[in-house]
């Protein structure tokens, strides 16, 4: 029984620590750390998205920055047109910008879903290294498309002068914005938890471990994987919209393959397929980046060593190290 309770305990401590850190920072009047905690929450959310595809579905997407960046550009473009009072689309329907965060989220989810359906429908016909390469290729296409858009800043990116707003919440306040990100992270964790343990989750796990068996039972693996890939992209896209609003800036860097790699690193560091793995992974990544990065520019050397030891010695990542092997029953 004690063994069974270890992982939920580790998860609870992790999530509580992420909540207490910015609260303490506010109490100590250190606003910098509130922003840092928001970064952790947002990048963890991006990782939770990828983990659904990579961990549960076995789809190693090297192109999730595409969705992360698309979310960022939805936030940036909505803010730009709202600021200028100009129209995004004049015909056949007039669509302007928006200052509502809810609108930004809904549009982000819709755009991510449509793009993921298209990318997934092509990419999921391949497997293994080909899948990795084709998702990378799609993300690079979107990256270069963003660079070639002078209206939206091209290579220089786009500044968001005014963060979009929510009813009853002052999103301009760092702590309130953190709490919004934190709430979305918890919701995404809860949703993926339900999803992975549902009938759909059972089929998805079988699609990862033994697709031939799944087909023999009468469930075609392709639509199951495509659904999971799309949901995964929507979560990562939402994280991107928050990330752009946090930084007040979006640029093609959000769409770059380095960003895709980073999201994979969160998942691997935390523990592939472990529900709270991306939270641990993103937290560790940001801690290394800020504290070792504050001390030396070569902090990525340390990150490399940590990643290497995780892959070699702790296949379950940080969560696996703290909570033991994953349960299967």
């Amino acid at each position, binding site marked *: 029984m004690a063994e069974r309770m270890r992982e939920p305990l580790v998860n609870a401590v992790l999530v509580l620590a992420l909540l207490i850190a910015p609260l303490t920072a506010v109490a100590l009047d250190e606003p910098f750390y509130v922003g840092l905690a928001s970064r952790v929450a947002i990048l963890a959310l991006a990782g939770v998205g990828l983990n659904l595809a990579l961990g549960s579905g076995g789809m190693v997407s090297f192109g999730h920055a595409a969705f992360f960046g698309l979310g960022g550009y939805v936030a940036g473009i909505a803010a730009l047109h709202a600021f200028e009072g100009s129209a995004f689309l004049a015909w056949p329907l007039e669509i302007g910008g928006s200052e509502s965060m809810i609108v930004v989220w809904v549009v982000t989810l819709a755009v991510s879903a449509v793009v993921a359906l298209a990318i997934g429908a092509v990419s999921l016909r391949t497997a293994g290294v080909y899948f990795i390469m084709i998702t990378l290729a799609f993300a690079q296409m979107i990256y270069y498309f963003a660079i070639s858009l002078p209206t939206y800043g091209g290579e220089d990116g786009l500044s968001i002068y005014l963060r979009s707003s929510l009813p009853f919440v002052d999103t301009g306040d760092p702590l309130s914005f953190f709490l919004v990100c934190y709430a979305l992270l918890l919701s995404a964790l809860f949703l993926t938890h339900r999803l992975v343990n549902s009938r759909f989750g059972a*089929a998805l796990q079988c699609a990862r471990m033994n697709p031939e068996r799944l087909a023999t039972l*009468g469930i075609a693996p392709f639509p199951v994987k495509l659904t999971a890939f799309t949901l995964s992209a929507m979560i990562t896209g939402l994280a991107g919209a928050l990330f752009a609003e946090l930084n007040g800036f979006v640029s093609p860097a959000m769409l770059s393959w380095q960003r895709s790699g980073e999201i994979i690193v969160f998942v691997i560091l935390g523990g592939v397929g472990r529900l709270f793995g991306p939270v641990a992974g993103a937290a560790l990544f940001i801690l290394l980046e800020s504290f070792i990065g504050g001390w030396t520019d070569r902090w990525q050397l340390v990150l490399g060593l940590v990643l290497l030891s995780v892959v070699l010695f702790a296949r379950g990542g940080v969560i696996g190290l703290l909570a033991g092997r994953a349960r299967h029953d």
Partner: protein
Amino acid sequence: MTDSLLGPLLELQGLRKAFGALKASDDIDLTVLPGEIHALIGPNGAGKSTLIAEIAGGLTPDAGQVRLFGQDVTGWSVAARARLGLGRTFQVSSLVMEFSVLRNVMLAVQARSSGAFGFWAPVRRDARLRTEALGVLDRVGLTRRAGDPVSALSHGERRLLEVAMALALRPKLLLLDEPMAGLGPAGTRELTAFLAGLKTETGMLLVEHDMDAVFALADRISVMVYGRIIASGSVAEIRASAEVREAYLGDLHEAPSC
């Protein structure tokens, strides 16, 4: 529907499949009738596995037709054929290794009843799936092992779990690809008795090397050599056929090692 019950469960017409110069299926005609066990025997490399794959949907034939329950399914996917009522077991056990025995069968029950869709309710505590899956495990005598991971099962138990997963689909036709392989004499006797008891539920196409099991179970036997069916008939006819003796049974008696 009534038509499909009266006609053959499975009908292969002029099936051809070549890999380069090798003719793995060379103009195959074959039927499985309701309530019948049709055994397919032949030496290794005769094309039995290719034929199974063409029936299950993993391989598309170059020419000819596969009809299941009266319907032409030649271009259909593996999953679509399974949903139509085709169950199968694999020559090498193909199970979800990280799931428990019970969850493997629950997945099969789920596949038949609702497919993949159901995004919210926890599947482990789904009483309907559990009850039905436990019932199937009880039939094959694996109840004791329900909570164990598949990786902890013996070879023989894995073969039984394969059968249980196929049965959970309530198939109208079962493809059994060497179910006795590696079972040992006692296990083979048990599985033979069990399959004999299934005849009223489902027709079977049985690919098997164990001749005692084949002669005990089969209503009809087809003999396959080099991609062709060289003889087809009752147990007595096949035993008596000189051609079969020469091509297959004779070899077997001289070289019992295979």
